[in-house]
């Protein structure tokens, strides 16, 4: 029997079932109604690279990295911001829940950093991977995003 060595990489189906919903949720926060095309592109890119993966560590942050790249491309080429009024059910943190509906006004990098940190509990090291930046820059983007949100929130309050 010819065996393909895949070093613990789970079958794509399992990876896909595990992450498809949260990636769609993430992209909805970044892109609003434009999320579905970006979601499909994210998993197609993941599939294109999947047989070249070296190990199964951090597949979650890996797919968030791809989703972030797809979303950034989308926001760069069509920068008009989405109308983002949809209530989001699965947000875990109260503070984020309070501010989440305002993230649509943030610059893309700050928005991704805030959503990944407070919506998905990703550590800054993995957010840095997703943004293609240093950990310090990821931390700075998230805190700058949060400051901006607070200012907006206070204006609205």
């Amino acid at each position, binding site marked *: 029997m010819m065996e393909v060595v895949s070093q613990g990489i*789970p*079958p794509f*189906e399992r990876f896909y079932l595990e992450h498809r919903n949260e990636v769609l949720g993430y992209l909805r926060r970044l892109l609003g109604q434009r999320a579905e095309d970006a979601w499909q592109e994210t998993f*197609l890119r993941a*599939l294109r690279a999947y047989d070249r993966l070296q190990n199964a560590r951090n597949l979650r942050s890996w797919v968030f990295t791809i989703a972030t790249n797809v979303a950034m491309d989308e926001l760069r080429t069509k920068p008009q911001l989405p109308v983002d009024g949809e209530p989001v059910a699965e947000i875990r943190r109260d503070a984020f829940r309070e501010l989440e509906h305002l993230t649509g006004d943030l610059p893309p990098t700050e928005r991704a950093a805030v959503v990944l940190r407070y919506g998905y509990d990703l550590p800054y090291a993995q957010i840095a991977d997703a943004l293609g930046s240093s950990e310090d820059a990821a931390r700075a983007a998230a805190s700058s995003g949060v400051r901006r949100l607070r200012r907006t929130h206070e204006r609205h309050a």
Partner: protein
Amino acid sequence: MNVTLELDAQFRAAALREGLVDVRYDIVDSPVGELFVAATDRGLARISYFPDGMEDVLARSFGPRVLRLPLDDVRRELDEYFAGKRRTFDLPLDLRVAPFHAAVLAELARVPYGETDTYGALAAKAGSPRAARAVGTVMNRNPIPIVLPCHRIVGASGALTGYAGGLEIKRHLLQLEGAKLT
């Protein structure tokens, strides 16, 4: 935020269209229980009576890009077979086995519908007349049962002997085909 069935189906279809899938699989209902079926671009690669863990088997054998997708041709031919309306399968096969296994399975494929043969006879036809026991192993590891009809191979006495899916299923298939059982 749940992915809708429509969006899910669109993604799966796009993945297949772009040639990004190493192996695809589906679960097919049959009178002998759920069958796990898998195919590559080359053809039908697996049928299993035990779906649990088969995605991992596929990933090891064909690559990690394993995706569930409808396998309509396979489903149709199996449905026809179980309805008694099909005696031979027209599906192309993707058989990746060692040379001895390949030789035995090639002979196995020639055992006609509704007839039986013995392990020893099959060994002889494959050019290794004393390898009846090894032929038993090949039958046990047959990657595509039903289509490669290892249920038609019985002991020298005519006893059913063994079957990966269980003797009950072996008997069911032989009765479906109208084979004479001793």
